[in-house]
């Protein structure tokens, strides 16, 4: 389970990245920041996991990447969701949802 600064569940990071860039193109630094902010500092993404994950997703064709400039005028690599990535996100969200509900149902049973 995600604890503060804890590691993400295997495979969850990919889902979070896909979801984060679903709203619009972002570069790596911002992706990490977004995940941290939205999760209210619960989820910390280490660079050592983030960048390999980004490259892996790009390689699998789930993310498209292009070079652009940040708000501060710095050159950065922006990632956005590809069509294939969108489909993957929908599928994984559904699966995650189902899984979470199932686990929750079990946790709710009276002892």
């Amino acid at each position, binding site marked *: 389970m995600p604890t503060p600064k804890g590691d993400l569940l295997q495979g969850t990071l990919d889902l979070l990245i896909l979801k984060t860039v679903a709203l619009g193109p972002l*570069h790596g*630094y911002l992706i990490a920041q977004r995940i941290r902010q939205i999760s209210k500092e619960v989820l910390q993404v280490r*660079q*050592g996991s983030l*960048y*390999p994950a980004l490259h892996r997703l790009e390689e699998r064709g789930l993310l498209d990447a292009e070079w652009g400039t*940040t708000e501060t005028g*710095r050159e950065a*690599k922006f990632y956005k969701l590809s069509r294939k990535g969108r489909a993957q996100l929908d599928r994984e969200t559904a699966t995650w949802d189902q899984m979470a509900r199932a686990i929750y149902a079990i946790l709710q049973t009276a002892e």
Partner: protein
Amino acid sequence: MNNHESKLDRELHAHVAQQVEDYVAAGMSRQEAERRARLDFGGVEQVKEECREARSTAWLSEIARDLRYGARTLRKNPGFTAVAVLSIALGIGANAAIFSVVEALLLRWLPVPSPQKLVQVNMFVKDHLTDSFSYPVIRAFAARKDVFANLGGYSGNPFTVGPPDAPVLTPGAWVSGGYFAALELRPEAGRLLGPADDEPGAPIAAVISDGYWERIYHRDPRAIGAAILVEGHPVTIVGVTPPGFTGAVVGETVDLTLPLQALAQLNPGGNASLGPESRWNRTIARLAPGLTEEQALARLKVIWPTIAPLGVSPQAPANFRERFLNSYLVLTSGGAGWTPLRNQYTKPLYVLMTISALVLLVACANVANLLLARATARQREIAIRLAIGASRGRVIRQLLAESTLLASLGAALGLFFAQFGGALLVGMVSSTIHLETGMNGAVLGFTMAVTIGAALLFGIAPAFRATGFGPGEALKSSERNTGGARGRLAPALVSAQVALSLLLLIAAGLFVRTLRNLENVDPGFRHSGILMLDFNARRVIPNDTQRIAFVRESLAAISQLRGAASVALSNYTPISGGYWSQQVSVNGTQAPEGDYPFLAVSPGYFDTMQMSLLNGRDFTMRDDLTAPPVVIVNEEFVRRFIPDGHPLGQIVSAVEGKDFKGMQLVGVVRNSHALSLRDGPRPCVYVPYFQLPPARAGFGTFEIFVNGSFSDVSNQVLDVLRPRLPGSPLSTRAFTAQIENSMRRERLMARLAGFFGTLGLLLAAVGLYGLLAYTVTRRTGEIGIRMALGAQRAQVVRMVLGGALRLVAIGIAIGLPAAWWASRLVGTMLYGLTATDPSTIALCVATLSVVALVAGFLPARRASRVDPMVALRYE
């Protein structure tokens, strides 16, 4: 690739820069912000490495990089590279060479459509498997369209083509009507032979090969329809077989194909060859559409009792008939054609394949050991790579790329060896066969598979060993103390090498002694100094009386020649592969089951061949067709069939046929090896050459005991015979060559097993030497301390050699039971010793131990010369 790298670099830098800006915006000093940002990020190189790995498509360029890096490392260590590549090349070369022969002789498909669907019919008579059928049986098979879509019979045969004054011996084949249909060949020109050509009375048609059409007719279309003289009879060429097809007999070229039915017209006595008991044709067939092999066999089982009687003459002895009628059929794959060599060489070739695989294993163990030693030397480099963020998998991949590179270099050199080796091997198997053993898809594929297998085999363990420690640990400790990278693996490898090379040595010992035993067999006749000449006058002199007169005159003329000390004549020769045998009766009682070799010999044969007459008399020139029939037998015949001890005057008869009846026994000769050196004594029957039925006389071999020069006598004999036998192929040979020829298989095994045994021993010695030399270097300090504490040189030598001998002893302890188990597989190929022959095994163990001692002595001596002061200062 560099583009990727720089982009990755920029991307990560952007991240850090952004972080710095945010920290500065939050009120940190720039210096502090930069420090924090770098700390947050962690190992940049490690992240980079992981990003690179995340890109799966990058693997190709990574492999290219690995290979380049590997090539650089190999170039930097030429000595290591040379030894490793040579070891692998010898191992892979041996495998590729033998496989190329296996492929050519045993596996290669005929160049026909879907060869895998061709079958060959075989017959089990009692426990004896035969692939040959008589013509009536083949016709009966071909008529069963419910079993065979098409079936043909065939047999290789040289034809004499052209006018009598300029005949050319042309390799060819007899085939039955269904042969080409079964092969599903399309003619290159004209048409191929069909069932109509193979009917009695059909005009004689011939098909020529594409090569023959090219060479003789320069692809002139008018060749189709042309008449040529074959065995003196006009024959019409009707078509040309497609290019690449040279008949179904592997390794023989068929330029001229004739229907079997033509035999009756072309050869005097040819009709007999088409009779029920002339089983000399092989079959090739395709099953009826939709029929599986099992279904076909089931149907054959039902119909065989109706066909079998066509394959045995009604006059045959009852027990023989019964045996034949109780035979049953089996189907084997026919798509690879047929060759008599397969019966003889399938097992030897697979034994050689196994032996060469063992050599490769020894070579792999050697290279693995070299790699282990080098991994230790490279520990620092590998530790640094691990420390700066390379994953273990990544470094292992790098090391395996290097092994693959080594193996590939070895394979390239090995294929070069194999190119010559394959051709050499085919020459050792047979002097008459023509097999393409050059590189082809099958051989290359096999070699590649072996190469990759070898690379993994010798590369994987050292690669895991080399990376199996934490980077910190390796960086801290010095090279000498981390010899654990070789650990117990290296000695285990050397023991394995010893075990494998013991197996190889024992195989070598068994086969070399088998050959020596055969060479030392007393054949029972004189073999050196005998010149032989085959002749056949049946075509040139068709008249019986004239032909027999010619033979008598030739015998007399040759005996007058300068240097011909003694001359004789026989219809077959001992240990030639060809023989004639009959069932016999003595005084009307049939000799027990089986037929016994017959030989027709002229007067003086026993004298010329130095086979002493033990009893009675030799044949004389008066023992001809006008005199009462006489016979000479050997000791074994008397021992088995005339046990009362009074052989002379007994009556011996052949059971079958109308000839060789009521022959009076006039002499007994010493036993000799008539058919093969491996045989025990067999009962043999000798009949006078000039009492042969005229149709059977007129061909045979002159044996001349030469007193002087072979070539001189040979030239004189040819001068005598050539004018009398125009156009007949005549050549002379030494009898010793024929006997040596009969030991071809044993010589092949002895030479190759001997070669591989030596090779395995050398490789194992190098392996042992390498390990000890390395150990001594690593233990220099320890040895120095021991010597400083008073150890004597002899003690140091004993210590090092003791370690070596322990490894050898373990190897022998593993190798001996393995050899015991494996040697049973070659038992039937040996002669004069058993597969577990104690003296051979003892000799091999002794040889191995001596070689190991020598290999161990050099490092041991070096250890004993260690100067304690130098060693300790080094510490």
